[in-house]
């Protein structure tokens, strides 16, 4: 047990760190960082002032994570300068950053589920009296910080029993327990419902008023417009620009981030809506994530599902593929009613599904490209004799073909799936859609975690499929994506369909107005499922 006696009260007692608004807290100049031949950051510039919320904006893989890891000492940097509180920093470690008052709330939670809130808050920095833990003292401090943040949390509750949003609050409380002058939040709303997120925004704004410098990593537009004072845009590891949020429009930001205008970015997909291929009638899911769903999926058009995280849109796709049992209602595909639905049955009814979670459901990570590309088509005559013996040459040539067609960058056919980058993994998964004949393609978050180039290629696949007369369904949390890719958009909120927009009706205003509840929050119960 080490005596760790930083004075945690400094910030709490006075309520304000000793920084005047506008004072520069962090200054990075011409920072470079590479991993081997891969340049993660090039010529990075960044400045954080006291009393501002500074958003880091960029695609996945743009270098945001590397940048914040350098700031808080998890990673070193190769060249350039880093000044913290007006002192040059040569070597930074997480412990040093913590001592100096730089706190980070990671995307992945750093809490220990089996411990209580209180134990987690002091983890590694326990207060001691002699050899004993100073429990009363710690309890007092926990109450102080929770009161300050306005969190109604029981310090003795086990973290395992808390909801994700409350775990997030514990993370923030943990960061603020010590004299914190810089707070870094890495996509803090990723797992929160809107209400929880709104509560978090209030807290962040209060902290800004207290004079903290806040680095906020996100690529969600509504949050950025609400919170940001300044935005620094990164693209492919390069510094693009730092802009004042007040005089920058969303379109301009996206243009900075992608290096393209909206019109160039999303392909124009010709719509030629044909027969109905799939129909949901009054479908309610057993797990309660979605209820009373009725809609139809048609050939030759893209149907989009929009809504906030946790609204049930991805469960709809999972239900269509037989991964979510129904409690009532029915799904029909063509003229067959899909009873006792399963992925196997879905595939045999020419339904193809691409899960959002590549790592657990999409790809067998230690298997090679060939095995991953054909796994859903092993019963097909193309790849096996009577579903028993593999036709390996056919598999091989198929894998070669899709590598070329989808431009998958790989060390070779026998490379394992986990040797590929995010975008190439996604493309490998999509290759499955070409392994046998399908009519319906279900994409759950088709471009999450992929780089821009791969994103464009995936959009191109969607375009090709749709124009070939297939039915395509996309569920996406990225508003721009679902808006620009779909011909028809179904908006979901708290597990229910709240609107369907067609053709020209699909506008940002129309979508957003459906996203948020207008009536009294009577349907709370439905929202409690996550």
């Amino acid at each position: 047990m080490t005596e760790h006696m930083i004075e945690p009260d400094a910030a709490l007692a006075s309520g304000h760190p000793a920084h005047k608004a506008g004072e520069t807290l962090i200054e990075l100049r011409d920072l470079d960082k590479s991993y081997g031949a891969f340049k993660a950051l090039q010529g990075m510039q960044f400045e954080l002032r006291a009393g501002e919320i500074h958003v880091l904006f960029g695609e996945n893989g743009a270098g945001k994570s590397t940048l914040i890891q350098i700031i808080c000492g998890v990673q070193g940097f190769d060249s350039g300068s880093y000044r913290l509180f007006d002192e040059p920093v040569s070597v930074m470690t997480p412990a040093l950053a913590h001592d100096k008052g730089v706190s980070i709330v990671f995307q992945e939670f750093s809490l220990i589920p089996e411990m209580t809130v209180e134990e987690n808050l002091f983890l590694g920095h326990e207060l001691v009296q002699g050899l004993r833990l100073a429990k009363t003292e710690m309890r007092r401090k926990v109450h102080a910080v929770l009161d300050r943040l306005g969190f109604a949390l029981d310090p003795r509750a086990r973290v395992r029993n808390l909801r994700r949003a409350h775990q997030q609050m514990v993370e923030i409380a943990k960061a603020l327990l010590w004299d914190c002058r810089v707070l870094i939040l890495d996509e803090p709303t990723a797992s929160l419902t809107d209400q929880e997120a709104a509560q978090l925004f209030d807290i962040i704004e209060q902290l800004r008023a207290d004079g903290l410098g806040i680095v906020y990593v996100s690529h969600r537009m509504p949050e950025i417009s609400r919170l940001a004072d300044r935005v620094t845009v990164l693209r492919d590891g390069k510094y693009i620009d730092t802009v004042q949020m007040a005089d920058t429009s969303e379109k301009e930001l996206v243009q900075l981030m992608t290096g393209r205008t909206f019109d160039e970015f999303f392909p124009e997909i010709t719509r030629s809506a044909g027969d109905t291929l799939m129909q949901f009638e009054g479908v309610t899911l057993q797990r309660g994530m979605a209820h009373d769903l009725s809609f139809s999926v048609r050939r030759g058009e893209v149907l989009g599902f929009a809504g906030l995280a946790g609204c049930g849109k991805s469960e709809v796709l999972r239900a269509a593929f037989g991964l979510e049992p129904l409690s009532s209602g029915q799904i029909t595909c063509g003229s067959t009613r899909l009873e006792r639905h399963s992925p196997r049955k879905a595939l045999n009814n020419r339904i193809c599904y691409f899960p959002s979670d590549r790592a657990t459901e999409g790809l067998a990570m230690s298997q090679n490209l060939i095995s991953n590309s054909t796994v859903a088509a092993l019963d097909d005559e193309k790849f096996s004799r009577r579903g028993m013996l593999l036709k390996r040459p056919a598999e091989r040539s198929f894998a070669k073909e899709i590598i070329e067609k989808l431009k998958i960058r790989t060390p070779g056919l026998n490379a394992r799936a986990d040797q590929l980058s995010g975008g190439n993994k996604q493309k490998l998964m999509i290759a499955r859609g070409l392994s046998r004949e399908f009519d319906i393609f279900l994409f759950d978050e088709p471009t999450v975690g992929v780089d821009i180039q791969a994103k464009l290629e995936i959009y191109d696949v969607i375009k090709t499929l749709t124009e070939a007369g297939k039915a395509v369904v996309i569920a996406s949390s990225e508003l721009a994506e679902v808006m620009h890719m779909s011909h028809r958009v179904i908006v979901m909120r708290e597990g229910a369909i709240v609107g369907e927009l067609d053709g020209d009706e699909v506008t940002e205003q129309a979508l957003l107005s459906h996203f948020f509840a207008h009536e009294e929050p009577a349907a709370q119960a439905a929202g409690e499922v996550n």
Partner: protein
Amino acid sequence: MADETQSTPLDMRAIAPHLLLPLAIIGVVVFFAALQPAMISGGNVVNIMKQSSLFFFVAAAQLVVIITRGFDLSVGANVSLVSVVSSMVMTSLLPGLGTGIGVFAGVCTGLAIGAALGAINGALVAYARINPFIVTLATMSIFTGIATTVSGGFPIFNLPEGFSFALNQMKILALPIPLVIAGAVAWALHFMLTRTVHGRVLYVLGDSNEVAHVGGRRVREHLFFAYVTSGILAAIAGLLMTAQTGSGEPNLGTSLVLSSIAAAVIGGASLRGGTGTISAPIYGALLITCLSIGMNLQQINGSLQPVVIGAILIFGAALDAYRTRGR
């Protein structure tokens, strides 16, 4: 971004396991031969071939389930039970039906028992979804108990000589019969793992059950048959070992549990599932057999052998951790 995934064709981490084991086996043989030339005498080489062939089957039984990210702690108990019951069948049928039919019935019974024991494990793992460690730990105890009970705890003697001849002493083209059977089974297993849909699915589900399920595979069915295969392979080991000892032994397989896992793991099967080829039980069986016979020739205390097996298992698991590091 994708540049970082490019690797040179000469990736030592990929090649090393393929060279390491043959070299280690040769090293062990050379080391013991230097101490005791009898190690490479004709008789001893035949002995090594026979012993490692017998041992190959339990290691292979282990491999099939390790690929599915499982375990089979009951292989040894399976060997014992098969030994006892098939011996009892043979000795009881022998007087009435003659050697040929008696031996045939004994072998068939043995294989059927192996399949049945495998099916019990498979049903509990795949359909009842109980952790394979717990399932096979329990069935290990159950099968051993049954083997001891039916035999009354005593060996079953007076097996037909034809049985020992057919499954142990016979030679085909100068090769001992256990080696011939091991070769044929190894080939069949290799074929199953690499050329059939079932084999492919075992690897995929070993990597991730969800991926196989989303890929439309019947996960439970394939998992079930992996345990049945494992049971049959253990039964073959049980029959061959019985033919070698010449009697049905209720504790024939007791020491095989740990060593079979050690052989599969040191041979290159990963406990994380999804990997491992037929070379794993082959190399693993050869390595452990050579070590064990070498130690016997050096008259090293037999009680030290479990120490060596344990060390090999840890070493193999460490190699596995090294190979899969960073994934």
